[in-house]
């Protein structure tokens, strides 16, 4: 104990001006001789005269400023009240019970202060001063200390970002904005770039406001438009587009580190978080005033219903708080980390302050103290957060019920009816053709024609003796069944089967099946019918899942049930390398564990037939091979039964859709109201005194109202009306248009942030924004009508040198598309983008969840919806979003990085998703008959411009020289367009 204490009370000043004190020991003696002062001001005078200089000389070297030896700070009343690791340093009025007095008087020889290696003990007179001060009740006027966190009070009071906004009645006009920008340019003698052309401008504006390129028709109409207000009308049209809310909302989701999973050790899904996501999109689409946007996210559940836009919006909006990251094995045990995440994100999101830094200690640079942190922590500790479930605590709870749609009962009834219909249909189908029935019918007249085993790497003829001759009746079925050995891995098996009628009139062969495999199952061809089946102990069933490619290889087609069993074909004229190299133009089967893969052929007419073929291992891997049986199954009626069963299997049962449920939100409500204790050094195991809930001291420190609530409602008001919050959002909107904000560090307006490049502009925008009611769309209109926003990005080297990074906006900064914009643009070019809003993700039903840290939730859901709707996981980055610098789902992302790495180029070379989009794009182009029209359309769709004559010639040359058919050539050209810099960048 003594050693530990000595260790933490370290770093005392090396020189001791103790001679100074001998002089005022006399003063002290005099002071002690007078009666105890009767008033507080006498006490404070004593403090100022005697105590403050003593503390400054002998104690504050280690226990003041940003140093707090042993956790103890003596530079404020709050400091010694909170005390250090040993508890409060002073008990006013009780010198003998005060650790400070005991330490300096050497009462405990094991830990005297200052420590022996830091200088001499205090003189008796000095000890007497401190003892007397404590006896008088420790009067100390240094309430709050000279500093708040890492700034002293004067500095904090003068900090630019905390100043009131200037007077304003409206936003600055575009001309006024340009004038303010122009001043900085003129000062440096920079002549800005001229305006971009119309084509560049509409593409820029469309990506900026909707995240999507304009259609070729929109581009042409804009260029043809001769009206003076065409830019304004374009911006209005884009702002009114539903795509705008989604795009703008996704930018907000970056800032609030939105995710669809909880982030604790099992990364549980948040099946209701989407409601918050969609609320954000709707809020931007509706241009909700920003102060209300803030209020609803922090305290929408507490705002009077009349103030909300929709019945449930207030509750849903608090999803902002609920989506806070959860930590650890048992979320409740690490809830202090979730509160930190909330406070940290709140500071960064709305205030541009790193409030989370003050959990363990006062902020090192900004005016935020640990007391500030715990004053806010109390508000969130008094709030009940929806609980996502965790490994030791099972399923979710505390989800917040929403008012159901009025027609919920009717919707439920309709759904139940659909379920009943589906069940009835399933029963009807089973009555016609269940596995059992198909198995039973197959046994009639069944006989085995041949059987054998195929060892690793072998090829075995169906019958060693040569062709098999057999008499068959119409409707009888020839079945080739392949079963796995004891080990069911690496059992890709090549099958060849040829059936020739005795009269020579008909020949049916697997070679004919190969190119047609994916077209149907059952596959009617040449008078006979082929069926692709699997067979378990209960009987056979059709392989119902069609695949038009395997492992990204479009030449591979399959019918399967899960991964295996399957029947698949390489339709290409060359071998394809996947898990093994599959020979060209061949048919394969892959049995599963306890499930054979079957190839069945329904005999078209009575007669004699000659059957030949072979079964060969197609994936030698040192395992145990397969076995096969060739048989005749069923009587004359079997073929018809099988064909009908196949037709039924090919018609999927109608999906009744998800059950309409009472809606709930992942949101917050008021909890058990209490103040949170300060955690010494952030350690929840070392609780200090409770800190009353209040606003940040630097903004006045107003206490929460004594209405019995958490204080969240008041907090929402403080944040929403803070001038800092207005500066922060205005700066974000600026950054969303120009790539970099007026303050480049959009999440940090504190001491470590970057100062504004145009401070007056920022203030006038913020003031005007407030004056006009906080409408973000008004900001868009003002900014996008400036000459700065219209400037060309293509400029000479002198401007690039004079204005690096376009911080002064002498030219428009070129940018790469974001991950979402890339994916949406690919889908759009492919003609596949589904712009309708998405709702819930297809998570597994809650009742089935048994996620553990050993088996956490993990999924990637593909969709043709806009990428803003992709399911974002905290523990596993979405592979596409991670590759193209998507937002961090664990921490606020103020701006996207743009990295250029070769794995991105590999995506454009080889990714199956990319190839499919290019192929679909090529099919769109291929639908045009005229070769020149195809090239024109390709340029207009990908680049929003027609090709030049040289480009058109070159494209025609490429298409002529590229091997393959029309579609293959166009697909190759589409890949080139979609991989190019022009497609990927906005000028």
């Amino acid at each position: 104990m003594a050693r530990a204490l000595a260790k933490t009370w370290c770093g005392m000043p090396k020189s001791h001006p103790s001679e100074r004190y001998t002089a005022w020991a006399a003063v002290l003696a005099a002071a002690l001789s007078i009666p105890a002062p009767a008033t507080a001001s006498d006490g404070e005078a004593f403090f100022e005269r005697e105590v403050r200089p003593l503390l400054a000389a002998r104690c504050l070297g280690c226990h003041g400023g940003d140093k707090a030896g042993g956790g103890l700070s003596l530079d404020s009343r709050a400091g010694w009240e909170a005390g250090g690791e040993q508890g409060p340093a002073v008990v006013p009025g009780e010198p003998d019970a005060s650790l400070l007095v005991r330490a300096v008087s050497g009462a405990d020889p094991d830990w005297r202060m200052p420590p022996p290696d830091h200088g001499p003990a205090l003189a008796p007179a000095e000890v007497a001063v401190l003892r007397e001060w404590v006896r008088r009740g420790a009067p100390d006027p240094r309430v709050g200390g000279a500093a708040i966190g890492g700034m002293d009070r004067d500095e904090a009071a003068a900090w630019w970002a905390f100043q009131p906004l200037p007077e304003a009645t409206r936003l600055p006009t575009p001309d006024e904005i340009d004038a303010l920008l122009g001043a900085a340019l003129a000062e440096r003698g920079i002549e800005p770039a001229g305006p971009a052309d119309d084509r560049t401008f509409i593409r820029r504006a469309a990506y900026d406001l909707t995240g999507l390129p304009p259609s070729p028709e929109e581009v042409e109409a804009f260029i043809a438009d001769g009206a003076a207000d065409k830019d304004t009308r374009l911006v209005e049209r884009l702002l009114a587009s539903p795509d705008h809310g989604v795009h703008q909302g996704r930018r907000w989701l970056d800032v609030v580190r939105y995710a669809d999973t909880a982030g604790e050790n099992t990364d549980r899904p948040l099946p209701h978080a989407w409601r918050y996501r969609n609320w954000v999109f709707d809020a931007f689409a509706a241009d909700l005033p920003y102060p209300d946007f803030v209020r609803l996210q922090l305290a929408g559940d507490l705002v009077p219903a009349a103030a909300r836009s929709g019945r449930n919006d207030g509750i849903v909006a608090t999803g902002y708080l609920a989506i806070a990251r959860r930590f650890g094995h048992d979320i409740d045990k690490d809830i202090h980390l979730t509160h930190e995440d909330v406070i940290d994100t709140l500071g960064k999101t709305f205030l541009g302050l790193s409030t989370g830094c003050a959990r363990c200690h006062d902020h090192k640079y900004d005016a935020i103290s640990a007391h500030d942190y715990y004053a806010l922590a109390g508000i969130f500790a008094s709030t009940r957060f929806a609980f996502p479930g965790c490994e030791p605590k099972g399923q979710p709870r505390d989800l917040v019920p929403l008012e159901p749609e009025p027609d919920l009962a009717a919707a439920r009834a309709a759904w139940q009816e659909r379920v009943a219909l589906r069940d009835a249909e399933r029963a009807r189908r089973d009555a016609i053709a269940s596995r059992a029935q198909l198995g039973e019918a197959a046994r009639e007249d069944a006989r085995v024609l041949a059987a054998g085993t195929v060892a690793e790497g072998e090829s075995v003829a169906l019958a060693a003796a040569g062709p098999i001759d057999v008499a068959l009746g119409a409707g009888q079925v020839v079945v080739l069944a392949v079963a796995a050995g004891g080990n069911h891995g690496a059992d890709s098996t090549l099958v060849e089967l040829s059936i020739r009628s005795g009269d020579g009139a008909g020949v049916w062969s697997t070679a004919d099946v190969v190119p047609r495999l994916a077209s149907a199952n059952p596959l009617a061809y040449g008078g006979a019918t082929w069926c692709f089946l699997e067979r378990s102990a209960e009987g056979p069933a059709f392989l119902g899942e069609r695949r038009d490619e395997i492992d990204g290889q479009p030449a591979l087609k399959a019918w399967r049930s899960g991964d295996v069993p399957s029947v698949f074909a390489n339709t290409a004229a060359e071998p394809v390398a996947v898990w093994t190299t599959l020979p060209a133009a061949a048919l394969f089967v892959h049995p599963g564990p306890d499930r054979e893969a079957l190839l069945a052929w329904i005999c078209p007419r009575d007669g004699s037939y000659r059957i030949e073929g072979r079964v060969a291992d197609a994936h030698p891997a040192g395992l145990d091979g397969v076995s096969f049986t060739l048989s005749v199954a069923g009587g004359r009626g079997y073929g018809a039964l099988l064909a009908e069963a196949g037709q039924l299997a090919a018609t999927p049962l109608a999906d009744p859709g998800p059950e309409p449920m009472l809606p709930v939100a992942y949101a917050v409500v008021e909890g058990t109201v209490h103040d949170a204790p300060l955690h010494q050094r952030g350690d929840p195991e070392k609780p200090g005194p409770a800190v009353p809930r209040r606003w940040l001291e630097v903004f006045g420190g107003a206490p929460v109202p004594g209405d019995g609530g958490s204080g969240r409602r008041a907090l929402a008001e403080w944040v929403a009306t803070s001038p800092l919050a207005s500066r922060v959002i205005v700066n974000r909107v600026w950054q969303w248009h120009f790539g970099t904000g007026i303050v480049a560090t959009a999440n940090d307006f504190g001491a470590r942030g970057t100062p504004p490049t145009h401070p007056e502009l920022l203030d006038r925008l913020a003031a005007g924004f407030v004056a006009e009611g906080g409408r973000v769309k008004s900001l868009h209109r003002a900014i996008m009508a400036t000459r700065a926003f219209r400037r060309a990005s293509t400029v000479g080297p002198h401007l690039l040198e004079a204005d690096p990074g376009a911080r002064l906006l002498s030219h428009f900064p070129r940018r790469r598309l974001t991950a979402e914009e890339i994916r949406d643009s690919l889908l759009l070019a492919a003609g596949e983008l589904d712009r309708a809003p998405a709702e819930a993700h297809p998570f597994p039903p809650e009742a089935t969840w048994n996620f553990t840290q050993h088996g956490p939730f993990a999924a990637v859901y593909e969709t043709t919806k806009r990428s803003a709707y992709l399911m974002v996981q905290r523990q596993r980055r979405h592979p596409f979003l991670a590759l193209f610098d998507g937002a961090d789902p664990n921490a606020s992302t103020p701006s996207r990085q743009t990295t250029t790495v070769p794995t991105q180029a590999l995506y454009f070379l080889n990714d199956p998703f990319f190839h499919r989009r290019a192929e679909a794009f090529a099919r769109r182009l291929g639908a045009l008959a005229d070769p020149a029209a195809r090239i024109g359309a390709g340029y207009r769709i990908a680049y929003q411009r027609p090709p030049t004559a040289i480009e058109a010639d070159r494209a025609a040359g490429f298409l002529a020289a590229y091997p393959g058919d029309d579609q293959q050539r166009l697909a190759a050209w589409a890949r080139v367009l979609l991989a190019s810099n022009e497609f990927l960048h906005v000028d």
Partner: protein
Amino acid sequence: MSRSHRDAVWTPGSCAGRRTALRSAVAGSLLMPGIVRQLLADAGDPLAPRMPHFAPRAKRVIFLFMTGGVSHVDTFDPKPALSRDHGKEIKADHPEIKDRPGYERIYLKRPQWEFSPHGACGTEVSTLFPCVAECVDRIAIVRSMHTSHSNHYNATLGMHTGSFAFSRPSIGSWVSYGLGTENANLPGFVVIAPRQTYAGTQVYAADFLPGAHQGTLVVPGAEPVANVAPRVPADRQALELAALAALDRDHLAVRGTDPLLAGRMRSFETAFGMQIAVPDAFDLAAEDDATLALYGLARGQTTGFGWQCLAARRLVERGVRFVELIDTGSSDNWDAHGDMATHVGLAKNVDRPIAGLLADLARRGLLDDTLVVWTTEFGRTPFNNTADAKGREHHPWAFSSWLAGAGVKRGIVHGATDEHGLRAVEKPVHVHDLHATILWLMGFDHERLTFRHAGRDYRLTDVHGKVVHDLLA
């Protein structure tokens, strides 16, 4: 950094012939107009090779991570007193038994495998690792490791990022950030793992470091790196790339100097090279039978820890800075709550491959400047709630790791646990200290390898970490 400066420090990989020819064929003619190269000189490529703070002992790291928590008292930390006191009740304020029903009383549980001295140094290793035991003269065992959390998720995250709760950059990303890459056709940080371990992709994430320093995941099997296998034949791809280069060149020509555009043009050249270089790195066909046998590999095998180890050697030969091998995943691993016997199969899975890797690196001279680190996220309790319990629980207070190769003392044991293996008592080494030591061997002062993010300078070791100088040769 000037190119000449780099070249003086870093020797280019030895296997460059084929790729160089290929690159120049592509680069010279089609993909790379001269101007692009000039632009790139100033483009601030995050992967450009860089100098560390001081002369490094190790130029590369192979980090062997045994996931689930390996029992120290059954592998590298012999505890005769634990056998002697088997069944004796003890008291411990242990995080895994606190408030846990059924764990009101705990009893010491003896090691299940015999220890014996090996090598000239005589270090004792249990029979679980017979092959690694033969290598003790090459390695420095740390028997006094300890960590800050008893959950897999947190301890695994901590071992990889120095943070036990929040996502932070992985150690491999820090090394990549500090050193760049020697081989432009391969990533600087590669993770070979059959499955994801605890905390998912966070264990190899670049987090706030530039995305280029993200670990590239390699899953043993047919296509180890996503999108490396060409989807169109090479001659057709060449046509497409030529057309792409022409488009991009024209696009750049009217836009002047833009490193963003030029950098992306070059990335296609690199990607084109990766299509050859990556499969080449993972193609073991050129390895002779004796080498395969060292790793316990059958010819044609593309999975298993032996494959991972041999692939790791081939990657470090080609200039990859940091290769991590994870032996299993977040389940069916060393987490032997139920029965310690599962350690047998898990040890067998890695023992010969690891010994083979050390021998192979040594005979090629690579061990002189390659650091091999073997670790797990925590140890296992030397006690359980009954004396005859078959398993052991999570134990953050003590575990064993070892280091071998560049700059590390050979044949030593560092630190010790108490007589029962409960606590690291002599020269304790925290995870942060291990990180500081690894960075030191790579030529970095861990307090100076920082990155400014959200207003703060972050480092791998947070505000902790001391270099363990006793381990350094």
